[in-house]
């Protein structure tokens, strides 16, 4: 390997495979959410995008907009991290759905721990489907929650991924419950060496 991996040059087969992983992972996450809420949860087909880091904050309302995020590190055969990101209104909707009418103006400590738990369950579902699909052993860490400016939060995966590429693969999922809809984003950020591991485990190789 003489050159670093460039996500921009991923061939279409690899991109399709990554999209499919995103799809299955998000589907499992929606099922987990439905069980937790004991409500019927619909899901739109996830949108998978390859974006410049600089453009990611725009997706969620600009670099200064307040967002909620839960970050996990992944250990095992595949190393990296996974981030679940929500805009602040979606976070409030989720807490309200979970707590059955708990009204909140600000994200208080109670809401934070609820969001942490939601993030945990959704990301767990996401990672376990990834794990069974690839046959790779993966464990996720205890979650860490942050509510702050989108730009500041996204700097974390941006830096981590910045060692590999200037682009990131982002999966946008929309969950619907009645008239409430919650838009969430999963960012999967494998470590440099883990990209090959991931693709090989799926039987695809990124050779041009």
């Amino acid at each position, binding site marked *: 390997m003489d050159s670093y991996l460039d996500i921009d040059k991923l061939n279409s087969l690899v991109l399709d495979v990554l999209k499919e992983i995103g799809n299955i992972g998000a589907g499992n996450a929606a099922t987990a959410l439905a069980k937790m809420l004991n409500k019927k949860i619909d899901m739109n087909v996830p949108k998978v995008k390859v974006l410049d880091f*600089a453009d990611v904050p725009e997706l969620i309302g600009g670099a200064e907009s307040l967002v909620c995020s839960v970050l996990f590190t992944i250990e095992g055969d595949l190393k990296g991290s996974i981030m679940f990101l929500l805009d602040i209104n979606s976070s409030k909707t989720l807490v309200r759905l979970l707590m059955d009418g708990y009204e909140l103006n600000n994200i208080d400590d109670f809401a934070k721990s609820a969001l942490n738990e939601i993030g945990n369950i959704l990301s767990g579902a996401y990672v376990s489907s990834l794990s069974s699909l690839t046959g790779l052993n993966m464990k996720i*860490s*205890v979650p860490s929650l942050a509510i*702050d*400016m989108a*730009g*500041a*939060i996204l700097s*974390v995966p*941006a830096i981590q991924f910045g060692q590999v590429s200037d682009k990131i693969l982002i999966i946008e999922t929309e969950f619907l419950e009645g008239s409430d809809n919650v838009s969430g984003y999963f960012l999967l950020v494998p470590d440099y060496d883990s990209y090959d591991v991931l693709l090989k485990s799926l039987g695809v190789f990124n050779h041009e």
Partner: protein
Amino acid sequence: MSSVVKVGMADLKTVQSPGILTTLGLGSCVGICLHDPISKVAGMAHIMLPSSKSIKNNKNIFKFADTGIDKLIDEMVKNGAKKRRMISKIAGGAQMFSFSTKNDIMKIGERNVIAVKKILKEYGIPIKAEDTGGGHGRTIEFHSINGKLIVKTIGHGIKEF
């Protein structure tokens, strides 16, 4: 009104007085502001990583403290600033998520700040103010007319340096 120039992630810009430079939502990255009080040229770099030397993907020189600061000084000199007159103000380098693991990448903010300070010292550029560390994001604004740095946060107030 003076024009406001936006500096993105892994980016740098310079302005003449009375221009204003801004970068939105700094997290673990560090914003480096340089100012020459005589020519009133101001520059801002938004770096993501401490060093270009240990990384394979190092084509983007704006991304790293070492190459980014080099380039920023060059650009300012091209616009009429003198290196020996420059002063600096820095902000950012937060740790947005707390983890108990000793994962290096989680402490990247702190490492960025250390690298930036070391490089500025090597260039002999004094650091007049800093607002670094902590666990929150920052939006910064740097005024070329007087070298004033304004740091805005969500829930941690607004500060002037």
